[in-house]
């Protein structure tokens, strides 16, 4: 850190030629990270599609326990949060950091609303004895008036909890990262010349939205 120098009021590390070199290198790193995200979730998507085509009736039974209205509301919440995240960057680009802070705060709030809805979905299923894999409890399900139809139903919920859970972890991490750049923004560390961390966090938040855009029809609608 001590080897950086100031160019046009922006701290540039010694191994970068200029501000732009630093900016584009940072962004390229973010995009490489995004590729690993696509491949991580992609593996789960491919697995889901393959087992869905092997056991379509069992997957239909599993999907019948999901309420698309919950997923629908969560989709709108995430899309709105993506919009406010984009505004968080925009207001820094045009030199209105106070508004950017508000936009980032609303983004975190939307993430929290998403997680609260997820919490209600999960606890409702736990209450009915619906757990992933062989943890699924047929006795509890029968007690609640929903006897298990397919003996391998636990597989569907293995996918369901892994995919939506991994996505939920991303939402929580994203909320933490946005809070971090929001605090830095309130301290006045960003300007129209330097806002790379907000943009990097923003790209991460948008990929969380992007994955949900495909998870929603996959889990709630097509099943």
């Amino acid at each position: 850190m001590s080897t950086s120098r100031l160019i046009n009021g922006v701290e540039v590390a010694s191994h970068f030629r200029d501000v732009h070199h630093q900016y584009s290198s940072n962004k390229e790193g973010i995009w490489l990270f995004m590729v690993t995200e696509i491949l991580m979730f992609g593996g789960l998507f491919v697995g889901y599609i393959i087992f869905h085509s092997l056991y379509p009736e069992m997957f239909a039974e599993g999907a019948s326990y999901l309420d698309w209205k919950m997923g629908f509301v969560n989709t709108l919440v995430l899309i709105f949060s993506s919009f406010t995240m984009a505004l968080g960057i925009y207001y820094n680009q045009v030199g209105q950091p106070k508004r950017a802070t508000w936009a980032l705060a609303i983004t975190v709030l939307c993430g929290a609303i998403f997680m609260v809805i997820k919490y209600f979905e999960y606890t409702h299923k736990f209450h009915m004895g619906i757990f992933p894999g062989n943890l699924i409890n047929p006795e509890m399900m029968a007690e609640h008036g929903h006897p298990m139809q397919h003996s391998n139903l636990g597989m569907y919920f293995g996918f369901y909890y892994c995919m939506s859970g991994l996505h939920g972890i991303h939402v929580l991490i994203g909320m933490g990262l946005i809070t971090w750049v929001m605090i830095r923004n309130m301290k006045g560390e960003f300007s129209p010349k330097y806002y790379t961390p907000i943009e990097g966090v923003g790209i991460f938040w948008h990929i969380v939205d992007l994955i949900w855009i495909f998870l929603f029809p996959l889990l709630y609608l097509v099943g």
Partner: protein
Amino acid sequence: MANNHNHSHSDHGAHAEPHVTPLRTYLNVGAALFVLTFLTIIAHVFKAHYLSLAPFIAFGIAAVKAFLVMAWFMHLKYDEPSNRVIFALGFFFLAVLFAFSIIDIFTRVPQGTVL
């Protein structure tokens, strides 16, 4: 904003400042995403009429939404070509994984045990 707009792709040092998308565009993209989400639900409610097509409609709309998010919210439309290539490679290798897994699963010949 003071930089001159030099659009040569080979010379990194001469790049203009990052593109600033107007607020109006973000509003339009956000509104389009909301409309498409409602469209997904409308299609879902009436899916009894075209059951076999339902997944294609749902994922077709999702693909349009994904494009809007990537192009405008993630700024890929105005990003450097190398970043677009990097991100597209992720989807390419995902397609490779998908294709070979599908080919494997659905070309297996059932046979009895050899033990």
